[in-house]
């Protein structure tokens, strides 16, 4: 049992150094690990670190030559939770942290995509800045509500890099049909303290507090190939339907039902084609501009008919 575990860890260490081009003595490593873990009762992670540090000193390995433990991947390659990876990425956006256990949270991106990151307060890692590129070493992947994200933990490293990671244009244009509008859309209430959406007068963070009215739609735009979860704000909704917050309140008052606003918006928008220009922010496409799709070019139709005939 003990031997098995030691052998396992030894192999990991040997493999890691081998990848950097160094042959190390497995027997010696096992001996040291055995001593630290089972004689001195040092936690495994500490024992491993100690042995590695000793090897680095012993072999005079320059620090930058030692490859990261976790393989360097691109964001698009991250598809499974619980994987240890390293990423070269740019901090795209920092969000407000809602929890004292989170030091920083936001989005990082590389040329293949964007992903949400969380730096745990316990990790003790330095702060990152928006717009700067970093090597995130030994971070762990996870999935939350169907989206992937990465955690920076105590065993991770964040190193600022010179390279400016190029992120593909963030604003995209999508033409699609609005195939669903989520229930918590329409005339909603937000918490006065944190602007989060309240359900039945309750803020998920602050409980029963005073709220204020807002108009928004969360929906799904589908172009037959992909779907995009979109958020429309009051301005967007007004541009499409002519209904603004005042009008929405009026509708709710007249029909004595806040849900009447949602019904009205659904009847005007569901199943319609929208042209949306927006910014990809993790899970949502944040809408900058939205309009109903204008008619089709007759020449396009002629061209298609010819194509079929040919």
């Amino acid at each position, binding site marked *: 049992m003990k031997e098995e575990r030691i052998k396992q860890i030894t192999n990991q260490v040997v493999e890691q150094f081998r990848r950097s081009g160094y042959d190390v003595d497995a027997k010696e490593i096992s001996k040291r690990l055995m001593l630290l873990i089972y004689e001195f009762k040092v936690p495994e992670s500490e024992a491993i670190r100690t042995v590695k540090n000793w090897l680095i000193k012993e072999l005079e390995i320059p620090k930058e030559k030692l490859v990261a433990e976790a393989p360097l991947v691109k964001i698009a390659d991250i*598809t*499974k*939770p619980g994987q240890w990876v390293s990423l070269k990425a740019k901090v795209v*956006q920092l*969000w*407000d942290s809602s929890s004292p256990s989170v030091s920083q949270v936001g989005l990082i991106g590389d040329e293949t995509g964007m992903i949400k990151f969380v730096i745990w307060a316990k990790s003790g890692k330095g702060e990152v800045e928006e717009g700067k590129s970093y090597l995130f070493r030994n971070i762990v992947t996870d*999935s*939350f*509500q*169907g989206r*992937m994200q990465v955690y920076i933990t105590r065993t991770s490293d964040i190193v600022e890099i010179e390279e400016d990671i190029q992120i593909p244009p963030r604003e995209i244009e999508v033409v699609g*049909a609005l*195939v*669903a509008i*989520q229930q*918590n859309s329409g005339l909603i209430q*937000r918490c006065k303290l944190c*602007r*989060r*959406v309240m*359900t039945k007068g309750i803020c*998920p963070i602050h409980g029963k507090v005073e709220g204020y009215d807002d108009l*928004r739609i*969360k929906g*799904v735009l*589908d172009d*037959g*190939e*992909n*779907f995009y*979860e979109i*958020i429309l*704000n009051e*301005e967007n909704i007004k541009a499409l339907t002519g209904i603004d917050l005042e009008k929405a309140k009026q509708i709710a008052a007249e029909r004595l039902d806040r849900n009447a606003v949602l019904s009205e918006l*659904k*009847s005007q928008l*569901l*199943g*319609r*084609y929208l042209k949306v220009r927006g910014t990809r*922010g*993790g*899970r*949502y496409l*944040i809408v900058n501009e939205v309009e109903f*799709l*204008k*008619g*089709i070019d*007759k020449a*396009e*139709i002629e061209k*298609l*008919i010819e*194509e*079929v*005939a040919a």
Partner: protein
Amino acid sequence: MNGVRRREIAKRIFAYEFNRSTHRIKPEEDKAPVYVLTPLGMRCNRVFVVGALLDKDEIKPDSGIWRIRVADPTGAFFGYVGRFQPDALESLMEIEPPELVAIVAKIGVFERDGRLFVSLRPESISVVDSETRDYWIYETALKTLERIKRMELKKDEDCKLAWQIYNPNLNEFRQMVKQALASLKEEFELIEEIEEEELKERKEIEEVEFEKLKEKDELEEFEEEFEFEEEEWDLSDILGE
């Protein structure tokens, strides 16, 4: 994506291709969504259609299940709306046919004498204008032509399977697309209404399937795929819009 199922894309398909889809792809695991393979090698589970709602009839008095018929330039879709599609039912009650509608629907399948029949199980129905209908025809024509091209290449697995099962006459489908596109021009002829025979056949099956349909409805309610929940971060706030 691990563990959580992705939302199904709403495929664009003309009634002609839809009604000729008689092959179901058996789910590899329990609870996995059921897909229908169309004659042009497309897997679908959810569709988006725009057409003319021609009839709505309660299939038996007080059954609470309504049969609808929605026509596009190539044929007519059948659909069933029951109390487990509350949003669709609510809007349907307010619509008087004939009317142009957009429907987002899951595909319902039932089998009889070894043949599979497909129908729409609408999630939402809304009244739309003719511009929306026109764009749908254009978009669906475009996507159908892409499928025809892929069928010609015979490369991907679903196309190979479709050849094996349907051995489709691609020219017939090209003709169908042409017909649909022609309807977008001013001067066009409507194609033959859906074959009377098929209509009769369906009505017969309906009686038998009615009870099953009810049971199935109740089952399906729990099979709904993962849908969005309240967000953890509302970006629109953070961006200060």
